[in-house]
């Protein structure tokens, strides 16, 4: 059954159809907003609002224009931007290492190193300009194509490419010590079981 049919059923009260759609897209939306804003609470709110607005106005989704996934990401992005404007500034990145679920394969020291590295990456991405940040997150973490990202952010693919290029260049500068110093390699060699 197509997502368009599922959406129509869900909007008429079919809970099974809604659950199918929800479970299919919930994690991606949550991750995207969390990485974009750095706030788990905001990610929760925006994810909730996205699905409810989808059910409230299903006619806004046109399957001929884009997939439901693209539509939801675009809606989430718009809600995030609205929130930032209303808040007046970008949301501060929250340090919440306890929420991270890093694999507990290694010894505690490795785990600590991993968490530190994860935190460094998070901080580096947070320093990117918003347009570069969202393009990078959608490309690297959500595995969307350039065309899909362009549809979400309302730009053309060449602009998205340029933003990605700039974002990567900046991240290489910010995270350079973790490449050149061999920090990453060393941690794997010493603590790999």
């Amino acid at each position, binding site marked *: 059954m197509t997502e368009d049919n599922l959406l129509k059923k869900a909007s008429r009260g079919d809970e099974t159809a809604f659950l199918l759609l929800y479970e299919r897209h919930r994690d991606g939306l949550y991750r995207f907003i969390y990485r974009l804003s750095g706030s788990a609470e905001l990610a929760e709110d925006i994810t909730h609002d996205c699905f409810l607005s989808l059910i409230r106005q299903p006619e806004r989704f046109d399957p001929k224009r884009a997939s439901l996934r693209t539509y939801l990401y675009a809606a989430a992005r718009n809600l995030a931007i609205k929130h930032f404007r209303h808040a007046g*500034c970008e949301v501060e990145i929250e340090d919440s290492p306890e929420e*991270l679920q890093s694999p507990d394969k290694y010894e505690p020291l490795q785990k600590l190193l991993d968490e530190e590295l*994860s935190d460094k990456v998070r901080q580096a991405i947070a320093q990117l300009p918003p347009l570069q940040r969202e393009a990078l997150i959608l490309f690297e973490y959500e595995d969307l194509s350039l065309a899909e990202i362009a549809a979400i952010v309302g730009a053309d693919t060449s602009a998205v490419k340029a933003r990605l290029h700039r974002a990567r260049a900046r*991240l290489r500068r910010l995270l350079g010590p973790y*490449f050149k110093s061999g920090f*990453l390699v060393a941690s794997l060699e010493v603590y790999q079981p």
Partner: protein
Amino acid sequence: MNTNNHEIEQKEADELIDVPLSCWDGSHEESMADSELKSLLRRWQSPHPPRALDQRVMISYRAQTARLPLWRRILTTSISVPIPVAAAMVAVMVLGTFVLTRKSDGIAQQEPIIVERIRIVEVPRVEEKVVTRIVYRNRSNEKTDQDKQSIAPQNISLTIADEENAKGYITGADLAGFQPNREMNLKVIRKTDENEK
């Protein structure tokens, strides 16, 4: 700060439109750096959505769809039916339609059966009662053929025998100007209990 970022970003975007895309074809160093960067970026993991989010979304969804009128919910509710069950139902419906169609055709082709029914209806029997009345007429005057047609005797008297008079019966009739009816209209009186004497 947000405005500054936006201005910078806009400026960069304007500059970057002409950025050559040859870098995407990738020099070796570029691709190595990209793969290292990619593996580094993967270190940043996001948390899973909490279960509270699921509960919150479902509560809101049910509240939202509960506003739909009952008739619409009933009409638009769908029931999932496994394919074998659906196929069996369709087969039963087709077979039933076929059988019913055959039966109705069979009924139409049969000849109508004529059943004779004898119904006894009692009809009242009318017995005509014949009443004979003797009318006496004076023949005192001889009549010619012409006179025969004139049947108006001037004076007709009728006398009764003495013995009858002796009993006290007086029967006297003056038939002056008597003219028998030319036309006789007989009226048959049906036998009923009222006419019974």
